[in-house]
């Protein structure tokens, strides 16, 4: 799909992410990127926005290769972003790698991918 080589940018150390937890990488535009760490210290990155109602996946519970969205408990695959059946939807995925204990994301994706998607708004201004 995308032939160009990633422009890897270090965002944090693996140890900055709690095991079975996540950290957010804020972006200049668009919703933050959630970087997850599994029990066996692999790292995955998804847009911090559930495909269901926009819940903050970074605040969810990580188990195996999935994260449970804190809003309605959808199980989202960290590997491909797909919701586990019977739910249907796909979170935006970001390329991610570990090199010498550092976590790298693709700078081009950080700058451009899914910047048009907004975080959900709660409260009086949310509308129906």
């Amino acid at each position, binding site marked *: 799909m995308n032939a160009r080589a990633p422009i890897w940018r270090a965002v944090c150390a693996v140890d*900055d992410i*709690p095991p079975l*937890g996540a950290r957010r990488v804020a972006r200049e535009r668009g919703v933050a990127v959630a970087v997850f760490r599994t029990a066996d210290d692999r790292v995955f990155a998804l847009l911090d926005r559930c495909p269901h109602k926009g819940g903050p996946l970074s*605040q969810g519970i990580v188990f195996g290769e999935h994260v449970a969205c804190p809003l309605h408990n959808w199980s989202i695959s960290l590997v491909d972003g797909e919701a586990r059946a019977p739910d249907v939807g796909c979170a935006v995925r970001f390329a991610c790698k570990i090199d010498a204990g550092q976590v790298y994301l693709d700078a081009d994706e950080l*700058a451009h991918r899914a910047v048009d998607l907004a975080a959900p708004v709660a409260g009086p201004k949310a509308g129906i």
Partner: protein
Amino acid sequence: MDKYRIPTVKVTSGQRIDLLGVKKEDLPAVWQDIGMPSGHAYAKALRTVKTCVGSEWCRFGTQDSTQMGKDLERALWRMYAPHKVKLAVSGCPRNCAEAGIKDVGVIGVDSGWELYIGGNGGIKTEVAQFFVKVRSAAEVLEYSGAFLQLYREEGWYLERTVHYLGRVGMDHVKQRVLDDAANRQALWERLQFALDGEPDPWFEHAKAQVDLRQFAPVAGAVVA
């Protein structure tokens, strides 16, 4: 409210104060500024102890339900459990505090207090079952505490008291808490032992093993 631009403040039916719309990043600082204990609004723990105004102010009140509620809350706050735990104390059988749909409902009567357990106001409303009648406020604490400790020890994760009761049966609970006084006291003592020194997660982060990194994005991570 102005300092952290908190959009909505609400007083809840359980006499807690809701601050709605606080940014997660601001939460540790908000708690420091408030300096009050947490109501554990989202925890699998003791939630609210709802009360009516009781005999101090109500013409029908037979017992000081507000004081009883405060005593229960002070005795049980920070109590983690298999699922959330809600209490209510009404000063008379008119039951303004809706004790009949709480995990432990206490109703004041002329001769003492009636305890009801296993109520639930959720998707399927369940009326609490009559458990026991006691004479004194101290007994309310001991019997309620002993039941809750039994539930803490035997309940499954995510099992509310109504489902726990349905699984083990009221007779089982009555045997352990009512018929066996020594066991009741032992349960109540174990609960007090467990709660002694239990840290407030918003003020004793390290002791409560709260990872504060969850409140902040990764350092210097605003990526252009």
